[in-house]
């Protein structure tokens, strides 16, 4: 038989002013299993708490109802208080008679009557409370960062600097991501490579960072503190331990291939380092274009290599390791505009290029050594049209969101173009100019000052006429049709999630929004966490952003990892789902519905009605379960229940309200 104590708080006059607290306490004394009631001026005060502790000892109470302010206010306070008593901290229910009663109902009789009902419900519920306990989850203090762009590098460096080992996985042959492809960065016009490559070098030489390039995450299982990650490292055909990175092989290689790094505007070899400052600065063989690997002929690289580092028999390797936390930093890709914008030629015109291609044209180490030349004939364009929001803010053809960086990116392109080409004309078609950021608007104003012509409106069509690219559009400010005969057109295309976003997101149970960007746990207050514990977001995999925001988020994510790793173990949530295996009929509805992938079906063998039976039953992982209870309703067999909010408790609350 349980022994319930009910404690009514006056909260000064906050409660006592509109509720007859003595009457309430007296009424509560009549409820089943209530053996003690009392009322206090301020229960949450030290003396108030002490009086509860005294009552627990004196009346041998084993569960407590506190009628006071909202449980959102003081439930934790009272749980903490119970830790120093014999009563389990979860044998507590709080009846909210302040926010939801005394403060909203003026009539004392009405308020008191309602307060009695609220205490009834709490007393009925507490009668079916069970002691709950948390479990300790060990933490493996190693972090995995997926993606070696600026976000991943920054996060890896910060975690490593905090003293924890990090593995950085990058699917390309080199670190650097998109940032290292940029020529200069707005608004300061720093050379992008100059600020990015030192980071790359730092990452490469950090003793606590293991870099895995040309690698992909194949499988992730487990949960916070204990992720089992399988990484596939693709064959490089070069032994990086012996390779000195001298580059002779690359020079001698006879196969030429379009350069991905230069966005298709230049050539590379079949054995190559993507760019001069690559980290690791060692070549890899592109098996799809290597004559030796394709046809068995050639092998020049092997012949010229002084240290015998070429390994034509190299194969993919997979390894599985345990990590305590994962940072997702696999970035974005540009929208495939050719597919969507037939009116811009759909890729037919060589001189309609996207912004990242233009960056490579501007870059001194790019295919044109920094001279702005048209891809078609190498001529210097004298009239440049820049079209913004290609794919962005265009729900019909592209995406509905703003890609955030393009306004500044376009202004920078215009500035750089006007700076490099004498007598040039630059027209920028825009919808809005959004330059919120330190020094951003000033930069935009300067660009206008430089002579860039901003035209407000979308370009409806681009076609070739007399060697010019005719851009037809509307200037919505003047209301007139606009025609620009350009030598070259730069499309500032939308950022869209990387190909991997969906695969990795679903593997980890990280939700994606409608555009497949990974969702943060809370848009305001938990912007780098995800709903899966131990998994954090950095950079553009979460949504379009510029470099400073990316770096800030990466450092924030790293900090979250460091906070996690600073503990030796985690305390699991006590109020979680539990499955009654004798009722479970293995239908799997719970498994399908769980947003945290906390439920799995596991085979058990046991005696049932004198027969040994082997069957599958659901099992809740206490480290992953967050206690939402969605599975309990999906569970028609009634096997799944939620501790602290059990079916029985909720039903008895309803009983108490209606029938006590």
């Amino acid at each position, binding site marked *: 038989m349980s022994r319930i104590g009910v404690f009514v708080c006056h909260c000064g006059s906050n409660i006592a002013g509109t509720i007859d607290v003595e009457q309430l306490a007296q009424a509560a004394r009549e409820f089943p299993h209530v053996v003690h009631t009392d009322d206090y001026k301020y229960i949450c005060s030290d003396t108030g708490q002490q009086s509860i502790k005294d009552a627990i000892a004196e009346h041998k109470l084993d569960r407590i109802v506190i009628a006071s302010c*909202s*449980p*959102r*206010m003081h439930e934790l306070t009272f749980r903490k208080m119970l830790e120093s008593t014999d009563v389990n901290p979860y044998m507590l229910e709080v009846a*909210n008679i*302040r*926010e*939801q*009663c005394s*403060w*909203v*109902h*003026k*009539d004392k009789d*009405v*308020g008191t*009557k*309602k307060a009695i*009902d*609220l205490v009834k*419900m709490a007393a009925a519920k507490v009668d079916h409370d069970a002691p709950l306990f948390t479990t300790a989850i060990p933490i493996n203090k190693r972090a995995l960062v997926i993606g070696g762009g600026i976000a991943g590098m920054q996060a890896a460096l910060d975690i490593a600097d905090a003293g924890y080992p990090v593995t950085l996985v990058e699917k390309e042959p080199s670190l650097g991501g998109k940032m290292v492809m940029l020529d200069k960065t707005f608004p300061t016009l720093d050379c992008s490579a100059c600020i990015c490559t030192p980071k790359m070098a730092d990452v490469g030489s950090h003793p606590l960072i293991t870099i895995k390039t040309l690698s992909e995450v194949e499988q992730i299982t487990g949960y916070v503190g204990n992720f089992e990650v399988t990484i596939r490292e693709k064959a490089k055909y070069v032994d990086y331990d012996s390779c000195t990175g001298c580059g002779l092989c690359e020079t001698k290689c006879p196969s030429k291939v379009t350069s991905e790094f230069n966005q298709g505007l230049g050539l590379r070899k079949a054995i190559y380092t993507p760019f001069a400052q690559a980290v690791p600065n060692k070549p890899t063989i592109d098996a799809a274009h290597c004559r030796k690997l394709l046809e068995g002929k050639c092998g020049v690289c092997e012949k010229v290599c002084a240290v015998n580092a070429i390994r034509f028999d190299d194969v993919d390797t997979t390894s599985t390791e345990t990590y305590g936390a994962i940072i997702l930093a696999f970035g974005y890709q540009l929208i495939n505009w050719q597919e969507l914008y037939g009116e811009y030629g759909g890729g037919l015109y060589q001189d309609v290029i996207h912004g990242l291609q233009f960056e490579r044209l501007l870059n001194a180490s790019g295919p044109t050594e920094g001279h702005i030349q048209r891809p078609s004939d190498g001529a210097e364009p004298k009239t440049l049209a820049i079209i913004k929001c290609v794919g962005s803010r265009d729900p019909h053809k592209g995406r509905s969101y703003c890609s955030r960086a393009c306004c500044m990116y376009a202004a920078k392109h215009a500035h750089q173009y006007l700076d490099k080409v004498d007598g040039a004309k630059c027209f920028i078609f825009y919808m809005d100019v959004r330059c919120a950021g330190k020094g951003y608007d000033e930069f935009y104003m300067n660009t206008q000052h430089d002579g860039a012509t901003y035209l407000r409106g979308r370009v409806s069509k681009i076609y070739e006429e007399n060697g010019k690219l005719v851009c037809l559009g509307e200037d919505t400010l003047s209301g007139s049709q606009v025609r620009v005969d350009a030598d070259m057109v730069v499309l500032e295309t939308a950022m869209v999630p990387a190909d991997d976003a969906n695969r990795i997101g679903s593997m980890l149970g990280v*939700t994606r929004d409608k555009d497949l960007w990974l*969702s943060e746990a809370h848009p305001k207050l938990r912007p780098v966490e995800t*709903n899966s514990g131990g998994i954090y977001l950095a950079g553009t995999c979460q949504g379009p952003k510029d470099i400073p925001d990316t770096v800030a988020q990466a450092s924030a994510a790293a900090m979250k990892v460091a906070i996690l790793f600073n503990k030796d173990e985690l305390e699991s949530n006590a*109020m979680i789902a539990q499955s009654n295996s004798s009722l479970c009929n293995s239908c799997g509805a719970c498994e399908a*519905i769980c*947003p*945290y992938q906390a439920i799995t079906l596991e085979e058990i063998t046991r005696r049932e009605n004198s027969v040994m039976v082997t069957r599958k039953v659901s099992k809740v992982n206490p480290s992953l379960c*967050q*206690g*939402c*209870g*969605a599975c*309990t*309703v*999906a569970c028609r067999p009634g096997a799944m229940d*939620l501790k602290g*909010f059990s*079916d029985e408790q*909720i*039903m008895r*609350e*309803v*009983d108490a*309200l*209606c*029938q006590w």
Partner: protein
Amino acid sequence: MSVVESNSDFQPTVLAFCCHWCTYSGADLAGLNRMNYPANIRLLRVPCSGRVNPQYVLTAFNKGCDGVLVCGCHPGDCHYVSGNYFAKRRMMAFKRLLEYTGLEPERFQIRWISGSEAGKFRDVVTQVCEEIRALGPLKHSASFEAFAEQGALGTVNALTPANKAEEVVEND
């Protein structure tokens, strides 16, 4: 909100299942702002609207509630990612089922109320309580009513032939 006169004496019992993160905190905010709303409402706190089993709703009606309200976070804002989406589908199907089998639509309502929408909480509660007050009490079987008359401890009238069809006729 005008009080419907014909049933103005009737004080319905309205049970509201509220998710801890949004609606329950919205109700707290309404309290903090000292907003007034009918005292007929009783909040039952659940972690998430996805925890609300439609069987609770039926139980509430069977035990004597005159109306039930289920509240959660706005779609997309669920603290647990997706609980309210599941709740929405369940409740959409279940509400239609209850209405099909003869329950007044007003008696069972679902609303999304965020933690900041104290005013919406007040308005919804006021509206729901007044609508149910206007409908009057939910009808129950004779045996239920007999038991509900507390204090009437005389003859146990069930000791007459329990012909169920008759009970319905007499009840009408």
